[in-house]
């Protein structure tokens, strides 16, 4: 048991992770110091007029962790207990994430300490505009590009974009991503993460010498990511035999199993918009309904956790079937460190979340590119370019893992940090 002395800090955890890789890369003290901390941190006040006429002052943050490879990119969160510590950790994570798929962007993150549950829409709009008035000079399509995050939406982004463009007197849709189509948004955003996941699965199977047509998979989650992943995976010939999802009525999860393979469109017809499958109707359609955690013990080749974090743990990793050869992390952090060791020992090939679910950020990059040149691609073009990006990112990571006999997760971090260090070196910062 750990000695409980120092409270948990997500930033320290991110730093520890970096330190491990820095050791492997034998980074010097200067590089470590630069990359362990953010390049720039802003903390500022946003005085806001409330509906009742009072002025309330909100605190805003923006951390630009590293922009050696390109403008900082990262979400803007509205959270009542937002802390600089969390924002720092998330900004660092964004730097690595952009680097691992090799897109020319840096990492950033920001937030405002506020609870939208306590604010009217008008008040939220004034906070958004206030944020831009304070921070606008340090952001922009070529500096720092925000996106929606916890408790912010496209609406918040559009308010910010409008304020930004009003200040600068010109259209600059590349200032923000996550915009609706028609206001500078990109096609393919819904599909991006799920498809990106399957692009990496396809490449991993090639590498393992397995024919995708002969594989089966079990998926946890049936939301946007999982649905699109299942569609593409089925298209490349794979067969999903089990999918687990949340049941709102019973307040528990169930796994829906069909040996012959699930029919995606049939299931979508009985699924609510939160990815909840109608249990009774599924039974009628011949699906076997099992307890929710049955997805993990299925006798399949591929496991795709695409729901929540911390789903594969020390206590259930043992139930994974011997047949499983590949685990693709569609969700963020689905595997606990303890389970990670078990997977490693059993020789299961893991496509780490950093890489596996980077389709989303890649598409945001595409959105920014299209916005900047004011020319918008059709969906096939977006998804085609996504395929190229994800494939080459996967190959780079797995090459490194093979060459250096590394675990895939470590290889992904290694390659990401290495790319950032190179950019810093090229610029003469290090």
């Amino acid at each position: 048991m750990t000695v409980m002395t120092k409270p948990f800090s997500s930033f320290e955890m991110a730093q520890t992770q970096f330190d491990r890789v820095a050791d492997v890369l034998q980074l010097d003290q200067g590089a470590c110091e630069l990359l362990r901390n953010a390049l720039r941190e802003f903390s500022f006040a946003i005085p806001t007029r409330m509906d009742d006429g009072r002025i309330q002052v909100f605190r805003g943050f923006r951390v630009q962790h590293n922009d050696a490879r390109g403008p900082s990119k990262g979400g803007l969160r509205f959270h009542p207990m937002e802390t600089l510590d969390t924002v720092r950790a998330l900004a660092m994570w964004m730097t690595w994430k952009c680097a691992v798929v090799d897109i020319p962007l840096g990492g950033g993150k920001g937030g405002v300490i506020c609870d939208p549950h306590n604010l009217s829409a008008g008040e939220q709009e004034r906070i958004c505009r206030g944020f831009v008035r304070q921070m606008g000079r340090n952001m922009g399509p070529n500096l720092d590009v925000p996106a929606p995050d916890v408790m912010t939406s496209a609406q918040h982004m559009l308010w910010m974009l409008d304020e930004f463009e009003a200040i600068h007197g010109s259209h600059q849709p590349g200032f923000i991503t996550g915009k609706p189509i028609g206001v500078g948004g990109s096609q393919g955003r819904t599909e991006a993460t799920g498809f990106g996941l399957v692009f990496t699965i396809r490449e991993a199977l090639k590498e393992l010498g397995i024919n995708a047509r002969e594989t089966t998979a079990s998926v946890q989650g049936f939301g946007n990511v999982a649905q699109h992943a299942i569609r593409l995976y089925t298209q490349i010939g794979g067969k999903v035999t089990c999918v687990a999802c949340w049941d709102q009525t019973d307040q528990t999860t169930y796994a829906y199993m069909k040996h012959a393979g699930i029919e995606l469109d049939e299931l979508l017809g009985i699924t609510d918009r939160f990815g909840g499958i109608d249990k009774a109707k599924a039974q009628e359609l011949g699906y076997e309904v099992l307890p929710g955690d049955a997805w993990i013990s299925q006798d399949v080749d591929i496991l795709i956790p695409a729901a929540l974090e911390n789903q594969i743990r020390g206590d259930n990793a043992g139930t994974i079937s011997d047949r499983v050869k590949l685990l693709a992390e569609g969700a963020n952090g689905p595997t606990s460190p303890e389970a990670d060791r078990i997977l490693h020992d059993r020789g299961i090939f893991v496509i780490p979340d950093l890489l596996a679910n980077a389709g989303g950020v890649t598409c945001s990059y595409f959105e920014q590119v299209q916005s900047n040149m004011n020319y918008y691609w059709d969906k096939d073009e977006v998804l085609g370019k996504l395929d190229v990006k994800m494939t080459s990112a996967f190959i780079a990571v797995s090459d490194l893992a093979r060459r250096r006999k590394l675990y895939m997760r470590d290889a992904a971090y290694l390659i990401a940090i290495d790319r950032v260090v190179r950019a810093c070196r090229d610029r003469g910062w290090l």
Partner: protein
Amino acid sequence: MPTSDDSIKQILQSLQERAKELNCLYRVDEILNRRDQPPENVFQQLIEAIPPGWQYPEVCRAKVVVNGQSYTPADFTATEWMQCADISIEGEAVGDLTVCYTEKRPAESEGPFLLEERRLINAIVERIGLYIMQSRLRVAHASLHQALEAPTTAQPWGILLEFLQRTDPRLLNRITRKMINNLCWHGVTDAEPLLQTHLGQTRSREDEQPDENRPMERWQLLDESDLTRRTFDIAAENLNEAEIVQCIQEWINEEKSTVLIKSLENPGTGLAELSEAVERFESAGIDESALPIAVQTSLKVALLRRFFVDSLDFINVAKNFVAVRDFYELTQRVIHPARSQGKLGGKGAGLFLATQILKRSTDNTNLLSNLKTPRTWYVASDGVLDFIHYNNLEELYNTKYMEIERVRQDYPHVVQVFKNSRFTSDVLKGLATALDDFDNRPIIVRSSSLLEDRAGAAFSGKYKSLFLANQGTKEQRLAALQDAIAEVYASIFSPDPIEYRAERNLLDFREEMGILIQEVVGRRVGHYFLPACAGVAFSNNEYRWSPRIHREDGLVRLVPGLGTRAVDRMSDDYPVLLAPGQPGLRANATADEVVRYSPKHIDVINLKTNSFETIDVEQLLREYGDEYPAVRQVISMVDQDRIRPPLPLEPDWSHDDFVITFEGLIGEGRLVQQLGAMLNLLRDKIGMPVDIEFAHDGEDLYLVQCRAQSYSNEDAPAPIPQDIPRDRLIFSANRHISNGRVADITHIVYVNAARYSEISDIQHLRSVGRAVSRLNQVLPKRQFVLIGPGRWGSRGDIRLGVSVTYSDINNAAVLIEVARQKGNYIPELSFGTHFFQDLVEAGIRYLPLYPDDGGIVFNEAFLTHSQNILPGLVPEYSHLADTIHVIDVPEQTGGLVLRVLMNADLEQAAGLLDEPGLPVGPVSPPTRPGGQVTEQHWRWRLRMAEQIARLVDVTRFGVKAIYIIGSTKNATAGPASDIDLIIHDAGDERQRHLLATWLDGWSGSLAETNYLRTGYRTDGLLDVHYVTDQDIADQSSFASKIGAVTDAAKQLAISSAS
């Protein structure tokens, strides 16, 4: 059924007679309404109009005598075959009507006359009496008017008196006496001898009465006229003309009101007579406001008491907002049995009062000017007694004293008996008239029980309300309406209200129940009928999702379609929540929340099948979106993660993604402001918080019901004892308090804030959430509180609060967030926002604690130093014993329990240790089929499962272990739930078969018992899953539940080999 020609002829004949009688009555009315004609003409026409109403018109003659003047046809001769009725005004005979046959005719009920003809003649004389009274009044009024118009004429009141002398000398006498009193009261000494005379005479009359009655009276009359002259002479000397005229006018009005006052004061007056008295008052054209205030008040109070309730609170308020005229409108829509003594019941009273208040509001904002109430008819409360009596169902009164199982068993039968019973013709006629009024618009039949006044409005949900599509022919519609009323009547004898009444000692109260028949607000959409939205609104908000919302800001629960879904808490759907005082602050902030907690179903009336249905709202809109009233104000577009109003070309119903938000109605439609204004007005005028039901048809807002805001026991303000011994107080609070009380908490789960913040490892932090989730499964449902730091369910930084979802805490009774000071700031609490609506719908209470505030008690020592049963309870999490403390309160305190009392009025809450057991248990919320989960269902199921396990013959059947899973284990079982068992057996085929047969027996009898307890019919109650050693080794399907980390099966004790 009469089949012969004869009987058909008979029926036809009698129908023809009725038609003749009616025609005659219409004709009489017509003639009497000709006010432009002199009375002589009128009576001359009358005697011609009357004979055709009789069975043998050719030999029938009529004679009218009025004020000594007789009107006869030329060939009138008195014969032995005649019938006669007096014409009287206020009991004084002023003439008579005689009808006679000139030749002999066959004998009927009264000589040759039919029973109906007696009724007819009585009706005619009554109308003539009214006519004469009105003429007199008109004359009096005209002369008064004349006098006032021409002030030069000496003594205008003199003319008035003269007229009275001619038309109504008795009234003049009374006015004279009043004037004498008035003069004496004003200290006019000259008048005192008159008073003496007056009194003296009275006395002398009393003395002489036994002997010489008649002569004295004559003498008196003479004297009265002299008295009048003398009195008014004195009056003229002491009062000015205007004063005298005003007095006389007031007294005349007062006198005219006496009919009404008399019938009100007479406890024997039936509703019919009362309605008639109100009608007469109305048609007498009395200016109500000209009556003395005392008379006005007395009339209103008596009317309110007579029509509605005795409750002083109600009358005190209502008397300020009603007029006699309002009752006239009301009586036009009251259906009652003959000789009814009934009232209109609680719901009727509330709606009537609210309507009057709103009608009289001086509204500057124009918010309430278009407010409407749906057309409503009432059936008097004794209608049900009459119905029972008419159909000889009195034995049912015994039902309520039977065992509840028996009641439940009998109930379906009772419903059928009621539905096959008949209504009396008076009521039937009334219902038919009501249906004509409603035309074929859908209606709702609601109970308006007199018990509501006694037991509080919490009772109102106990009886049925039925929606009727009201389509088809008049006969079909009438049959359906009768059916519905019968069914509502039958619900008096349904097990739930009887059980409820028994618990509250209300069984002996009489079963009087009024009925409200209300037009359903709405529009036709496809073959459905529904309002754009409907809901309930409360003056006091007992579920605040933000500290910026005050209790007085109110609460609105809004749903699409019929309001039924807003009234009850729902387990599978969510209404839109609003606080009218803070319309900008919504319970759901993110797009995901807005969509997740939006209404998914809609209650409608299906006009095709004539039934009330719950359907999928998305499907309805996809099919009939454009027909839905004000649809663009009802929905918002879901544009990826953005919720926005529909653009001009949207929505494309087949493709676009949309969600019900009512944003347009709330914003442009000013719905929230209207509701807010209405709540405020009603609260101010009634003097207490109210709750209302409303509906909106896309154009107008309708008030459907109003009553004082009721609290079920669990959300009533709890009195907080001031002398709690310090060692019994676990915590106190004084910020953001809602109302409520949670009794008999046996377990406390306390997450130690200091320890939690020291955890340095994210896995460790997460495991705290998982441990809570486990405890949520193993602790007794709704008997434990969760106390923890910061924000429960925080989705951002896990350090800010234990990471849980709603399903991890859904069995708790109370969720408490503790805000400890950190450095110089106090963290903001979540108010449960992450699963706020889930908490509301499940009735889980939320309480924020600020232990660092002055004067606040937070007994951390008790929470941290009591014995921690966590390791024993969930051994797999025993390493968290430092952080999570689970306290078995009775064990720790020698049998006490924790009680959480919350009082929003005082803004105080306390958690204290007390003896278990409150006088009144928690009130189960109103039930919807398949909706609410009540405690007893899972407890009883668990007990039965334990019983099965104890009784199973393990050697005979080869059983190794029995486990329980699913809703019974998780304490979520509803009335229709299965009992899910996993049976681990190692027997052979034969043993498995024997076991299955044995369990089948159990399953069947449990299903029957469950039916008797709940009214839910199932084929069997047990759902048995067999697993073998091999399954357990493989952890396949249900075997994986055994020893699972989450939601593990619970093993039941079985007898060792017997």
